[in-house]
């Protein structure tokens, strides 16, 4: 779980909507059980003969070292594979900004150190334009202030208290739940007659 309160990073734009997790990490590649980094966007990153696809945005030299992705709406839709988050994180991506996210992908992100920030369409459009036109476009994401800032604009974003604490404090969600052991046991005792699962 990555812990941070502020990230300043180079922005890379992915100018597509509905980027599904099969694109982020194809099933046949995550199944290899190898380190995931090289397989991020595997089918876009490489041509079918294995050579690098120079026209894929993340292969462009000016985006080398990017840590913030700006993408079209519904980013991370589709399959629940958490490998999609892991592959992005393995490539140094710490924040994804979009109008909306696949629900499972967003929750996986909070567990595995990829911060999803939802902003309104016009704001995402602005970030997309600047990052695609300019070289070296950087943003600062401040979790304490809940802002995304460049040299001109300050955009506020919403994030749940718990999710925010996960990133600020590097919270271990499982350990947190285990602290509620008494409540869980009490619930189980109280509801033991409820579910009929015949043996």
């Amino acid at each position: 779980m990555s812990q941070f309160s502020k990230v300043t990073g180079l922005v890379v734009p992915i100018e597509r909507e509905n980027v599904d997790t099969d694109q982020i990490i194809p099933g046949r590649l995550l199944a290899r059980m190898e380190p995931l980094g090289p397989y991020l966007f595997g089918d876009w990153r490489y041509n079918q003969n294995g050579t690098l696809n120079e026209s894929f945005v993340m292969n462009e030299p000016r985006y080398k070292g990017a840590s913030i992705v700006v993408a079209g709406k519904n980013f991370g839709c589709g399959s629940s594979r958490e490998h999609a988050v892991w592959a992005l994180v393995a490539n140094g991506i710490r924040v994804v900004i979009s109008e909306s996210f696949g629900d499972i992908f967003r929750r996986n992100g909070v567990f595995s150190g990829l911060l999803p920030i939802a902003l309104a369409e016009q704001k995402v459009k602005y970030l997309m334009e600047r990052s695609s036109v300019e070289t070296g476009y950087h943003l600062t994401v401040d979790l304490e202030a809940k802002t995304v800032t460049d040299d001109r604009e300050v955009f506020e974003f919403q994030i749940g208290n718990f999710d925010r604490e996960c990133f600020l404090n590097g919270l271990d969600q499982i350990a947190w739940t285990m602290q509620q052991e008494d409540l869980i046991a009490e619930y189980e005792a109280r509801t033991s007659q409820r579910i009929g699962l015949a043996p």
Partner: protein
Amino acid sequence: MTGGKTMFEKVWTKHVIEQKAGYPALLYIDMHFVHEGPYQAWDGLRSKHRTVRRPDRTIAVADHFAPTANRDLDAAGPVVQSFIRKLSANTKDFGIKLYDIHDARQGIVHVIGPEQGYTQPGMTIVCGDSHTCTHGAFGAFALGIGASEVEHVLTTQCLIIEKPKSMQVHMTGRVPNGVSAKDLALGWIGACGTNVGIGHVVEFTGEPVRALSMDGRMTLCNMAIEAGSRTGMIAPDQTTFDYLEGRTHVPKGKEFERAVSHWESLSTDPAAKFDKYIELDVSEFAPFVTWGTNPAMVAKITDRVPDPSSFADAGMRKAATRALEYMDLKPGTPMEDISIDHVFIGSCTNSRIEDLRAAANVVKGRKTNSNVVAIVVPGSTHVKRMAEAEGIDKVFRDAGFQWRESGCSFCPGAGDDFLMPKSRCASTSNRNFEGRQGAGARTHLVSPEMAAAAAIAGRFADIRSW
């Protein structure tokens, strides 16, 4: 909160252990289905020296990588062997019941859960797979989760979860001939888009939904995620109770009566309010075929491949242009003119006994087109045996289909079953994303009947005239 509760709210409220203001809820999970994919969850348990809190509420099955050509694991590819063996070892280490590839109860997780009577109305259910929403067909709150949450549930039997919003999708009108549950799913997603459900639990209502069998309701709920929804739900009724009665893990006798009484109380109260409401007249629906690279890019069988410039939305124009390039389709091409070289009847969407019967009805007495490789993968070993008892396997085999062992197979294309680049497949699965069934493979989503017809004709065909 005035006016009564929705079915989702009733199930939610009964399972919240705690919810502090401004924080997500701690939600108890009644049933945890596990497949061989998210093995990292077991590694996590092991490295932290923890155990599974409720082995009695945990069931594992090998499906995503289960070899379907035969069950000889030693002959399978190394990836398949690795995943299947890891699941066997992990479930053994942690004392979890496993339906392995030789077990008569094995199958695709979202087929066997209901089949074995584990899936019941009013439950909270999770699985490390996005199509867990399938179980919502029973009036369960069923969520897809990632590997970290799988570990979380194994350890604590709980989820930390923000309460989703609720959306009602109310279908009206007479369902036309030839329009199956799959077409209802493709039709509503085509009309409303892949984003409409984000953050929402969808409840499907209306006569067309009520008229569906449980297999049909599972198909409809299965595709809820393709509209972006957290999950789908359908209120339990006599159709549900009749399906459940007598199944292995469903209460019997007096306990069953008691359960039914509780299940009947789950329906949405008349005065309950949803956050979003969509009404859809299905009387103009037809058998559908996808043309693009997400399930909303869909057309009626009698329509043509659209011209990207005809879309009002700029994002949609761009996406459609790219999709047609990937799919190698020209605008204006009649859907009925598109030839295919593969047919896959299978997946958690459409591989249950009724799906196989429907497809077999179309195939009976006919032969597959000589250009087509056609494959049937039953949703479970139990479905396979039932189909064989009815002679359905013979119908398919006589027509030239391959009749396989059960598993997820060509749907995720991650194991030994995948397509070569530029293959064009009529598939009864749920996703036509770029590269899903294989790098460069082209997927068209259809109903089982339409897949069967395509196998015979060698191209898409309107089953209403068959």
